[in-house]
């Protein structure tokens, strides 16, 4: 019975939906996290009687055909790159991007990863690094006798050395943008990788045309909205239940067919 398989596709689609929602909720407090959404599409249709087919020699045609759908499938899991709220942390190495753009992170493998999570710190050499100790690109080295550092909106990093009053420029932070942000591949640890779908990275200084600006002492909160997620969860749960109801109806019909006495 097709109905059994169709309802099963509905149940597995809703299961995927719940998985995506639960990942969003779990990352509600993850810095720079972007919520995801499961997108569904209907499956192929099996045409039993084609609309427009001739129904007689006189040229009359079938006005409406019979097509039976095979259920639903997940089209894609889409990342919604809406801006998250910026929250004050007071840490001078915390940076938030307001607008478009990703920080570039040098991975141990030599590849470049991209992130919106700007909760950076310094390593033993005075380099600006991510939580995992990966250097950001281009490298920013803060002198070890610096008493304070300032990051401008346009990404210029300045440090005041001990015993001096003049600030000294120690580096320039650059951002990367992509034509299709949603095409980036998440690899965990708040990091994203470039893919063929995202297009090549376009690197530039913060504040330039098409790039966001930086905010020192703030981080970008996750853009997950608890109310939307919980509502989506309720919808998914009920849809799952309805599909299971179809399965039990199909089962009941098969049972009735099996119970026929000869």
């Amino acid at each position, binding site marked *: 019975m097709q109905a059994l398989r169709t309802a099963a596709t509905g149940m597995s689609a809703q299961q995927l939906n719940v998985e995506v929602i639960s990942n969003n909720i779990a990352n509600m407090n993850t810095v720079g996290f972007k919520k995801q959404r499961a997108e569904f599409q*209907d499956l*192929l249709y099996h045409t039993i009687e*084609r609309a427009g087919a001739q129904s007689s020699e006189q040229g009359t045609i079938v006005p409406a055909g019979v097509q039976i759908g095979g259920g639903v499938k997940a*089209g894609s899991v889409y990342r919604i790159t809406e801006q998250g709220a910026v929250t004050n942390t007071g840490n001078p190495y915390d940076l938030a991007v307001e607008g478009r753009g990703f920080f570039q992170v040098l991975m141990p493998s030599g590849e470049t990863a991209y992130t919106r999570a700007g909760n950076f710190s310094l390593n033993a050499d005075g380099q600006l690094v991510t939580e995992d100790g990966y250097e950001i690109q281009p490298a920013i080295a803060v002198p070890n006798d610096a008493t304070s550092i300032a990051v401008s909106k346009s990404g210029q990093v300045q440090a005041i050395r001990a015993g001096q009053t003049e600030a000294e420029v120690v580096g320039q932070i650059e951002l990367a943008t992509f034509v299709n942000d949603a095409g980036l591949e998440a690899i965990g640890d708040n990091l994203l990788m470039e893919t063929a779908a995202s297009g090549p990275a376009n690197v530039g200084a913060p504040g330039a045309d098409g790039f966001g600006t930086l905010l020192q002492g703030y981080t970008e909160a996750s853009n997950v909205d608890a109310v939307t997620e919980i509502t989506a969860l309720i919808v998914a749960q009920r849809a799952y239940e*309805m599909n299971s109801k*179809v399965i039990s109806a*199909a089962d009941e019909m098969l049972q009735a067919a099996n*119970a026929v*006495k000869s």
Partner: protein
Amino acid sequence: MDNAVYVGLSRQMILRRELDIIANNVANADTVGFKVESLMARTEPAAPAETFGAPKPVKFVLDAGVARDFGQGALFTTGSDLDLGIEGDGFFEVTTEEGARYTRDGRFRLDELGRIVTQAGDPVSGDGGGEIIVNPQDGAVTIAADGTVSQGENAIGKIAVMRFDDLSALEKAGDNLLRNVSNLQPEAAPDVRVRQGMLEGSNVKPILEITRLIEVTRAYESVTRMMESTADLSRRAVERMGRAN
């Protein structure tokens, strides 16, 4: 006598098909732009039964076609710039490898070339054909109610919204797409409004589907019972005739 069993069988086959369609509706209750379907049944008069003294021809149940309800689904906000919902009678046109397809699913995005594409990566047609190319460096994309796409002050294109005089020209092709299976040419739909940041939900009404589901199950059971009593009847007839001998 056996005709009753065959009539019952024809009804059971249609009921099963109807269940398949309900299952597809329920599975797609959460699919953007999905349009609900239902099975239309008709009776088919067959040759008169060959039993003696049966004056009426036997009628079987057959499927006549699938009715598709193109009614508006509820629009809901998503906040994504390239999510578009259509208010009114019209479709977006998508250019796939197999030719033009039509859809009410407005979950678009940009591809690596900056084109506005569907989930599957097929470009969305602009007014009068062609693709719409966005330069992400030029700022946010605004889409007006008539489909005009602009970035800042510059209009960069217009999303085509087409309509069909006769909706039965369309056949579902999966992936939320519809295929034109007739010679009918679509025309522009000027009175339709495109809503940016919104999507059209499926127009499946869960309560109706579940009610129909119960109806189908019960109808199947009663047809089964009818077939059983028919079989009973012939068994009793055989027993009696056996006694007369």
